[in-house]
């Protein structure tokens, strides 16, 4: 099969579902690389695919410290606080795997934390992720995000 954009053989075949409409894209390695640059950050599976297929292992994934998914997977270490949002859901899975399936912190918190604001920002991000996952019919991801939302709300309701 040929690439959608040129005559070279296609090496990437991706099925994309946007708002319920399914399309299949066939791309050569070169065009795949170009295309994947435009994949929004909220499509981590496509991002992963891009990293694997095109060798773009050094493309920064975390805005805070530049940690890429490939680097995180290699060392299993986060580089900064921002990684925990930037590398989701890969980092979520790594944490849950390491923690016997536990999905959220429970117990004490630092006295000096900017609670409400940070929680609202995190909640807003999760809601956005949920919307996008549902729109793309990625129900497994959607379920995970819903669990995260539930955990965050549970933490908010707990007395300090």
């Amino acid at each position, binding site marked *: 099969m040929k690439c959608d954009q040129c005559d070279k053989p296609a090496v990437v075949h991706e099925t994309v579902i946007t708002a319920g409409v399914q399309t299949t894209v066939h791309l050569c390695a070169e065009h795949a690389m170009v295309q994947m640059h435009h994949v929004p950050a909220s499509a981590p599976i496509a991002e992963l695919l891009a990293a694997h297929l095109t060798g773009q292992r050094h493309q920064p994934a975390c805005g*805070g*410290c*530049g*940690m890429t998914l490939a680097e995180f997977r290699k*060392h*299993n*270490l*986060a*580089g*900064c*606080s921002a990684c*925990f949002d930037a590398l989701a859901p890969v*980092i979520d899975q*790594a*944490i849950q*795997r*390491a*923690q*016997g399936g*536990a*999905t*959220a*912190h*429970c*117990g*004490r*918190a*630092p*006295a*000096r*934390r900017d609670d409400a604001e*940070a*929680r609202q920002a*995190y*909640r807003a991000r999760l809601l956005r992720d949920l919307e996008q996952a549902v729109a793309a019919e990625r129900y497994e991801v959607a379920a995970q995000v819903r669990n*995260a939302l539930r*955990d*965050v709300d549970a*933490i*908010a309701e707990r007395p300090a």
Partner: protein
Amino acid sequence: MKPIENGGPWLGPLGRDADVVVASRVRLARNLAGFPFTNRASTTQRREVVSMVRDRAQAASWGRMLGWVDLQACPAEQRTQMVERHLVSKQFAASDAPRAVGISADETLSVMVNEEDHLRIQAMYSGLRIDECFAAATAFDRGAESALDFAWHHRWGYLTACPTNVGCGIRVSVMLHLPALRLTSELDRVRRAAKDLHLALRGFHGEGSEPMGDFYQLSNQITLGMRDEDVVGELRDRIIPQVIRYERLARETYRSKAPAAARDRFIRAAALLTHSRLMQLDEAMKLLGRLRLGIASGLTEAIDSTLVHRLLLQVQPAHLALARPNDPMETLEQQSAARATLLRDALAPLRASIG
């Protein structure tokens, strides 16, 4: 660093369950908000983290008890000595980046800055004293958070570089002496049971170390979804008592099945330790382990376990070299000779008693 004779958490009172338990430790992992974690921080940022933590600790009642050691300015032998004394980790001693450790005068509290996480707060006591460790580590943590902003996430709790520490960042470790479980081949069962309970059974120096002299560290692996006090409570009330029971049962079995062999093992260990002219580290650890079992079984009253604990540290290479600055230590043989001399001298009362 002062010589081990002056104290150290290992040499405190033995307390209850000292026949099996050597020491307890609680470690909390914390990071500063606004800085990349150690693995991504620049040299300048690492320096900033060190001075920030040290300056704030020195200025406040919660941290004033710590004396600070700059690892970059510390000779290799002293760094190794701190590893041998369980005050810092091996990786921390070996790295060449800016890092420091604050140690309390009695060595029960140590705070590594720029280990895998910005802060590794560690409290250690002899015997089964998890609660005291937890209280000491938590007191420092509470104080520190009044002066420093810790990295925190609304879902994951305290953020740490490694996913294995995220949440409450606590690691409770109890150092156990389990010679009978190993002798009766029950240790693998304990190891499997521990794994099922999300616990790790490791060697003498913790992560990645080999068991020496039948000393093991048992520690929790889960830090997320459990309150730190529940992690502590589970090990203290449920798990450690069970392991202690198993080990005692195995000792009983071994003694009743082969009383002469049990006594012979002890006498042989004592004879070798009190007469050898050369003694390598692994052999010394093994024999000291047998001595400790003999003491716990009532086979001698000439010495007590505190002496064995002290020797377990003193026979380590850096302790040996630093305690005998005038002895030649270039070769393994010279080191073994110095170790043998140390053991013969320290165990003279035992030699007299075994005749």
